């Protein structure tokens, strides 16, 4: 696999709220590239702009200045509808909570982006994903009949279902206990290793970040540091220096 291919990137990205005295720069000139098949964790204290960066990269929010690309597609040039279709076909999402549509079964939730597109799911691939995350016997259950961990596994499966060019995960384990959380993180790691999936994950948990290939540190809307092949300890060390 060619690791040189770019899955997504931001060029000189600014996101400014308010003006004058009340001006807040959530993103203050960010340049970052996410290579295909790479697992990136974005870390930073509250208010550092890590969620904003993710939202802007994913087409959920717009930049004040600069440009975000998914593949070669500049997001600012897309209409609302095109952006929606881009999300549907090329981006996967995993949120901290409330990842599933309560009226749909686990199986329906997983194939939701495909059915929204009116595409026949690749059943073999779906089955493989479901088996990998261990949901085979839960497929007809409604979200409220599933545990938090199971729900999150459904969310991971849904994100993988379309084989998107990039998956954005926003604190995917924030609401789970550590054992369940580690399971989810392993699945995500496996998706990168086995299927070459690109993942960008926002987290403030060092052990979660250690599953990634590299960790990007944000403070006050700027990239202040980067770490490759992290372990929980190296992440914690680096955080300490940033904090100090």
């Amino acid at each position, binding site marked *: 696999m060619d690791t040189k291919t770019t899955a997504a990137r931001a060029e000189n990205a600014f996101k400014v709220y308010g003006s004058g005295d009340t001006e807040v720069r959530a993103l203050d000139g960010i340049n970052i590239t996410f290579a295909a098949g790479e697992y990136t964790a974005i870390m930073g204290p509250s208010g550092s702009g890590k969620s904003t960066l993710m939202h802007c990269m*994913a087409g959920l929010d717009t930049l004040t200045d600069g440009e975000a690309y998914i593949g070669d597609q500049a997001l600012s040039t897309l209409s609302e509808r095109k952006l*929606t*279709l881009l*999300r*549907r076909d090329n981006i996967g999402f995993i*949120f901290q909570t409330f990842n599933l549509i*309560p*009226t749909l079964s686990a199986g329906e939730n997983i194939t939701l*982006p495909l059915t929204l597109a009116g595409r026949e799911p690749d059943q073999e691939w779906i089955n493989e994903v479901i088996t990998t995350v261990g949901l085979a016997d839960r497929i007809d259950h409604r979200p409220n009949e599933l545990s938090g961990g199971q729900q999150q596994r459904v969310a991971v499966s849904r994100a993988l279902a379309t084989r998107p060019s990039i998956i954005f995960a926003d604190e995917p384990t924030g609401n789970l206990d550590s054992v369940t959380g580690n399971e989810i993180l392993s699945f995500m790691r496996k998706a990168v290793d086995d299927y070459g999936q690109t993942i960008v994950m926002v987290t403030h948990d060092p052990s979660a970040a250690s599953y990634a290939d590299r960790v990007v540190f944000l403070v006050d809307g700027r990239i202040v540091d980067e770490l490759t092949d992290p372990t929980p300890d190296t992440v914690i060390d680096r955080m300490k220096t940033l904090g100090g």
Partner: protein
Amino acid sequence: MFRLTLKNLLDKKIRFALTTLAVVASVAMVVGVFAMTDSLRSSFEGLAEDIAGSSDLSVRSVQDLGDEFDRKPVDEGVAGVVETVDGVQLVTPVVSSFNDVVVIDREGNAIRPSGPPALGFSWLPDQFFLINGGAEPSAPDEFAVDVETAAKNNLIVGEIYNIDGPLRQEPFRLVGIFRFGSPERHSGLGQTMAAFELETARDFFGLEGVYNELSLTVTAGTDIASVQQAVQQAVGPGLEVVTAEAIREETADDFNSVISIFNNVLLAFAFIIVFVATFIINNTFQIVVSQRIRELGLLRAIGATGRQISRSVYLEALLVGVFSTVVGIGLGVLLGNGLRELLNVMGFSLPSGPIELRPRTVIWAAAIGIGVTMLSSIVPARRARTIAPIAAIHSDQRLAGASLTRRLYLGGAMAATGAILLGLGLFAASTTRSVLTLVALGAVLVFIGTNTLSPSFARPAAMIIGKPLTLFGISCTIARGNAARSPRRTASTAGALMIGLALVGMAGVVGSSLTKTFLTTLDNSVEADYFIQSTSAGFDPSVTFSEEVVEEIRALPEFESVVRYRFSQGSLLINGDTQDIFTADLAEVELHLDADIERGSLTNADPVNGIAVHRDKADDLGLTIGSPVEVTFPDGQTDTLTVEAVFLDNSLFGNWLVDNVVWERHFTRTGVSFASATVTGFSDDLPEDQQQELLAKAAAAIEPVTKHFPTVIAENRVEFRQSQQDQLNSFLAVIFVLLALSLVIALIGIANTLALSVFERTREIGLLRAVGMTRRQLRRAIRWESVIIAVFGALLGLILGVVFGVAAAIAIPDSLINTASVPYGQLLSYVVVAAFAGIVAAILPARRASRLNVLDAISHE
């Protein structure tokens, strides 16, 4: 707490507007009905005054039975007797003819208002006031007409007009135009008034040797009461002397009873609207409370008591109620005008007095506007009280409601009780009042019961209704899931639509049964080929046409026989009960109508002393062929008639049938209500083209007659069938229009619920949009959810409607409906209409949902 409540209200403007709209509509409807009928009352009171005139006393026959226009006339000799009584200054004999004096304009059209009567009078000097130098009619070929009729129809003084009278048509020269009631202002409610010189009028109206009444003026300074007594003594029993005041009251009472019918019918519709609105308001408050559950929990956590919480809900209801009442009263006054216009468009001629807002109306408006909102907020407020402080922290708190099993028992019990009351009302109650009370109470209980019950099957029902939709993709699957996910909400939203459609469905079944019975009778029991009736007959027995019409048709060789019919409601006394009566020319009627004679014969009956009776009545009274029957008529006479035939079909003649000879003996009215004719040589066995040829000949032959008498229309079987069906359909259309408002309110309810559901599901919508649902797909999902709810409500309503309708069809006397018929196609079209309505209701909520900012929606809590 007050400030918080107020802020909440102002914060949620759309929700407030939607809730208010339902209340405003109910208040406006009630106010509109009262305001309009009050204004009618005032106008009619004025007319009653003018009718009573300025004379002091009237002498007329005593009447115990029958319609005012069937009052027996006074012998002309009485005038001489009255004149000699001390204190009587002036005696004015009056003759009049009710609803059968019709002026024909220069183009040959009959001037006959539909609704108000066409009246004929002798000249009344103290009530008719000439305008523009016209003259009062004084010669046998002269007449005068009221100013309204003259102006509307371009009648010109000096021209000669044909006038249809009760006996014949005659030409008269118009010599004067007058105002009725006062010299300045004509007192008209759409009636037409033709006036003639006294002797001319008597001759033209067929009142030889008699007057309808004598108007007396008392010598100035004499005590009216003592003169009244003296005159009464002079004229003896059988006649009565009444004051102008008494006549005014009588007339006003008559008018009032008509207005009350209007009032009650319209109020029934207003009540339906109020009922539907109650559903919607209750539903809205329920949702509002569940929506604010975290906020209310927070208030509890920081120290608000449960009582304070529920009080804030009541306060919100009160504010909505007060606001809606004020707006509703304003709109109601406008609606009153609108209702009057609507009724006028439908063929009534209502006077256009100013719309009146009496204190009683305002009190009702407040009671309904505030009462209904307060009442609907009781359950939500009680639930709000039970919200625990912990609700502030847990986001997935749900309000406790009655369990579905409890609902099942409670709803079932209510619906069953309602059904029993309905049954009692339809089949066992005797007076009109008790029938209406039981039926209304029963229906309300059935509705509430069904609505209590329906959440327990709303989920499977929504799943089944939505099943075919899932073929159309994920949006529909989501719509179906959403419609099924909160059965209570779906059920109560659908409930409002259910009521309207139950009533529409019921009207449909009753209407279709009426039509079917009528058509079956026409096809099976009617042998006549032609039917002659007044242009605006309806079911008003006072609308008649003259015998001359019948004579002209009888003279045509194309027609073999003509039978005249007359009928009168409640003007006979048999065995102590008032009865309706029909008349026919017995010798020939069997050629025209087949009443399924069980025993005896009409053809061979003695027309002078014979009577025919329906089997049920015969059995009740133990009558058989040859039995004597004592019959008392409106003229006070009692005849002993002999039963000549017993018939089985009462859809033609009701229960009692006599010959026209008997009628002519006891009624002064000579006009004919209806006539049928057989075409010479016509038979159903003839080949089709010969039948058509005979009918064409008959049509050509009868045309000069209807041209001569534009007050009548003659129709063959096919035309008659069609025109009767049209009449019924336009009647049903009126009912549907009145029910439409309740459907509109139900739609507001659906829109309201959807808007709130959208709000509740903001995060879910955000998620859907994030993973790639387009705006269009989202709108579609909400639209179909709305359709599923609407169809659920429509089906529920139509099922109830069919049950109600069939029960009503069974309860309605066989003479009107003898078979229940369910118009499936029509009912299906209502479901389609409901589905479309659902789409309309979803427009705004769907647009709102699709415009949500994705990121905001996801982070919404």
